[in-house]
């Protein structure tokens, strides 16, 4: 096979992959533009914030999954009438019925892998990408409002944020350990710099140093774990690894369990660092206190979301259903998934044409025969112990993390530090449904899907809650020049609207109905119940109780305490850009419960592809 032929063959694949990878590419282009604008003289006159905002908004628009499906089959066209009309307009080049399989493959569907299997492009990827890019947009607006990167550092800071976002996106869609590691590094390393954004301040540099050293150590451990895992399973490609693992366990070869366990544990340690899970959370409070509130919001929402996405991919990927074909989902599975998508999510119905699935069908037959040859003895029983181990590990870590985060938050005097512990606690809550999903993998696929969906729901709520709180912290810092809780005393009398928003966000963080936090917690607890993880459920409930006190203490200080004598005026009216920004984040928190059904459908859709 000549090099030329290979290139030609690879072309369609790469092109199709590039099409669905456009958001990241736009982010990268924005980075380059930000860099190039420094060269010409007039470049400094262009607002780097504007460039970054435009870039991320375009990326967000592109991250909305565009329909590449053409309704070639007339029957299918009639059944899915309203959708198909839209699709035909948006699809760039509808393939004919006679189109070769190669050409139909060119258009990537959710559920496919792209870039030769390195990256999964499925509902979860789409969700995380949208969430992360939307978060970047919101964060950039906040930075514009608070003006924390000044004109000098603006381009640098935005470059770092966008670069880290590309890393997050890699993390959540990785299908390969290399991509996972690359993603973690791309996400972490810019974050180290971001933590030290205010480079003239002692504590900022200290925070960046601690973050960098701890992160480097954790990355080393994680890489070591990856080497063991990949070596023991003979591949770094997650589905292949899962298949090999299933084969290993099925064959009763258990001399590698020590290597596998240590490798998995070390990868988990690396993820736990990103998630700031106990006992790998130590960097988190220090970094949060030293960094600016804007960066804290970035670390606590985007970074956590990406880490939980990677944890989901890894935990479910490695212990997923054994004996599955390695490559892109078989046509049979895809056809069923298509039906499900139609049923569950008509609005975004990502439908597959009959023609396409027919062309896949031939392949599927091949896969089936291949599958039958493989000596997988009892697929269900063989990986269950591994799943149990993963559930135990993640569950234990989640329980410890939540409890620690909530208890340690008690004595805090700095609001950012308090929020750091709160973030730790919420990371614990987020890990719980992952354990539930793995626990349900071999028992109840629909239940596992619900568990993953609960992560999605919680992240949506968490996005608004934490960004809102940190935005308020940043705005107040600009006024009163302090982030100590005691300096917030009686602030309600100066800016009542802001404090009402703060109160709603705090109640939501506790998880009280009818706020968004309740929605997320309810789902997570429901998933835990479904999975039979009653102990974890109990710990989660207990921790919700613990968390009430320290959140409300802040509110108490804001509302009840008398105002200190010497404080610069802190009035931020709600009818002002900063006030409206905060309100815009608070309103969804207050009314998200109303959209229970759309959110449920969306989250289930996002989780669906993981199990096909």
């Amino acid at each position, binding site marked *: 096979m000549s*090099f030329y032929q*290979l*290139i030609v063959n*690879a072309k369609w694949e*790469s092109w199709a992959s590039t099409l669905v*990878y456009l958001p*990241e590419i736009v982010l*990268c282009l924005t*980075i*380059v533009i930000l*860099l190039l604008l420094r060269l010409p003289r007039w470049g400094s006159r262009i607002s780097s914030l504007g460039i970054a905002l435009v870039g991320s908004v375009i990326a967000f628009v592109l991250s909305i999954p565009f329909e590449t499906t053409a309704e070639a089959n007339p029957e299918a066209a009639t059944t899915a009438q309203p959708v198909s009309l839209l699709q035909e307009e948006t699809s760039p080049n509808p393939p004919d019925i006679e189109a070769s399989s190669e050409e139909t493959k060119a258009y990537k569907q959710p559920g496919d892998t792209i*870039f*030769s*299997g*390195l990256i999964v492009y499925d509902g979860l990827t789409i969700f995380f990408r949208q969430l992360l890019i939307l978060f970047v947009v919101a964060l950039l607006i906040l930075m514009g409002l608070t003006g*924390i990167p*000044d004109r*000098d*550092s603006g381009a*640098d800071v935005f*470059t*770092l944020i966008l*670069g*880290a976002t*590309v*890393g997050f996106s890699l993390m959540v869609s990785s299908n*390969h350990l290399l*991509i996972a590691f*690359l993603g973690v*590094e*791309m996400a972490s*390393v*810019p974050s*180290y*710099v971001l933590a*030290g954004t*205010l480079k*003239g*301040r002692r504590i900022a540099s200290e925070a*960046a140093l601690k973050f960098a050293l701890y992160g480097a150590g954790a990355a080393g451990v994680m890489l070591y774990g990856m080497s*063991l895992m990949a070596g*023991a399973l003979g591949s770094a*490609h997650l589905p292949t690894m899962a298949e090999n693992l299933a084969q290993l366990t099925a064959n009763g070869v258990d*001399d*590698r369990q*020590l*290597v596998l366990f*240590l490798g998995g544990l070390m990868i988990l340690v690396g993820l736990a660092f990103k998630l700031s899970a106990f006992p790998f959370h130590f960097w988190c409070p220090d970094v949060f206190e030293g960094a*600016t509130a804007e960066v804290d919001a970035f670390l606590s929402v985007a970074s956590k979301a990406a880490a939980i996405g990677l944890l989901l991919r890894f935990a479910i990927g490695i212990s997923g259903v054994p004996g599955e*074909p*390695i*490559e*892109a989902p078989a046509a049979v599975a895809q056809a069923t998934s298509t039906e499900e998508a139609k049923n569950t999510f008509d609005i975004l119905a990502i439908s597959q044409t009959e023609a396409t699935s027919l062309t896949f069908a031939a392949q599927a037959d*091949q*896969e089936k025969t*291949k599958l039958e040859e493989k000596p997988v003895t009892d697929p269900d029983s063989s990986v269950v112990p591994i799943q149990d181990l993963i559930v135990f590990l993640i569950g234990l870590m989640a329980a410890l993390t939540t409890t620690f985060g909530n208890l340690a938050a008690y004595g805090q005097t700095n609001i950012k530090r308090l929020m750091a512990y709160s973030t730790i606690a919420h990371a614990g809550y987020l890990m719980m449904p992952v354990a539930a999903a793995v626990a349900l993998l071999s028992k109840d696929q629909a239940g596992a899907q619900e568990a993953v969906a609960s992560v999605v729901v919680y992240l949506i709520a968490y996005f608004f809650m934490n960004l809102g709180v940190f935005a308020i912290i940043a705005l107040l*810092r*600009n006024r009163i*020049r*302090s982030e100590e809780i005691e300096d917030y005393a009686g602030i309600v009398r100066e800016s009542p609207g802001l404090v009402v928003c703060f109160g709603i966000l705090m109640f939501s963080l506790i998880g009280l109905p009818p706020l968004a936090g309740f929605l997320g917690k309810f789902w997570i607890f429901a998933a835990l119940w479904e999975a039979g993880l009653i102990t974890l459920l109990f710990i989660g409930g207990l921790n919700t109780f613990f968390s009430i006190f320290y959140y409300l203490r802040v509110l108490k200080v804001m509302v009840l305490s008398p105002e200190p004598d010497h404080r610069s005026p802190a009035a931020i009216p709600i009818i002002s850009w900063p006030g409206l920004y905060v309100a815009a984040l608070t309103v969804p928190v207050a009314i998200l419960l109303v959209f229970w059904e759309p959110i449920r459908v969306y989250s289930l859709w996002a989780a669906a592809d993981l199990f096909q």
Partner: protein
Amino acid sequence: MDNILWHSVFFWAFAVITCGFAVMVVLSDNIVRMAVALIFSLSGAAGLFLLAGADFVGAMQLMIYVGGTLVLLIFGVMLTAQGPFISLKAGSGDWIIAVVMVGLSLAMLLPMAWSVPDWHGPAMGASETKTTKQTALQEEAEADQETVVVEHNVSVTEIGLSLVGVRTDLNQEDQESGQLPEGYLLPFEIVSVHLLVILIGAAYLARAKRPRKPTKYP
């Protein structure tokens, strides 16, 4: 003497160099000495790479890593030249913890490293194995000899092609059966973006603040 495998000899030599200098890095208090020991240790590791048939990786290890460490050395000298070296000594308590950690970690890692019989060496494996990926050449070789050491030294071409998304080491059947070759085009491209971001970030931190009004935020 015929029994001596020179490969093993060199392995042990490089292993001793690598580990010995690594221990020296740990034990030394002087940052310059540490850096020098680190260079030797990493060079030893590069030798081990070469022994494992990873010529290109070994070369890169020497160029990037060892070269990079030189920068570390320069920084170390630069930053500590003014301060007293003595003050940066680790306390006795640290050493006690270190010993505990060494004990625990080795207790964790060494049994793990030795736990798989298949990995003890090509001849020491207990079972006969059937390989699925053997090429015709290898099958021929197997026919000749009882125990075959299938060596696979990855060439620069192969690595280079894989970085642009073309895998030459997987044979035709694998590709046609739908086995997607895991080309590394994406990471190869994306890591360049990463390096760009890193450069900007590092430069941002390292460059002096332009003389302007002091930052107004606390």
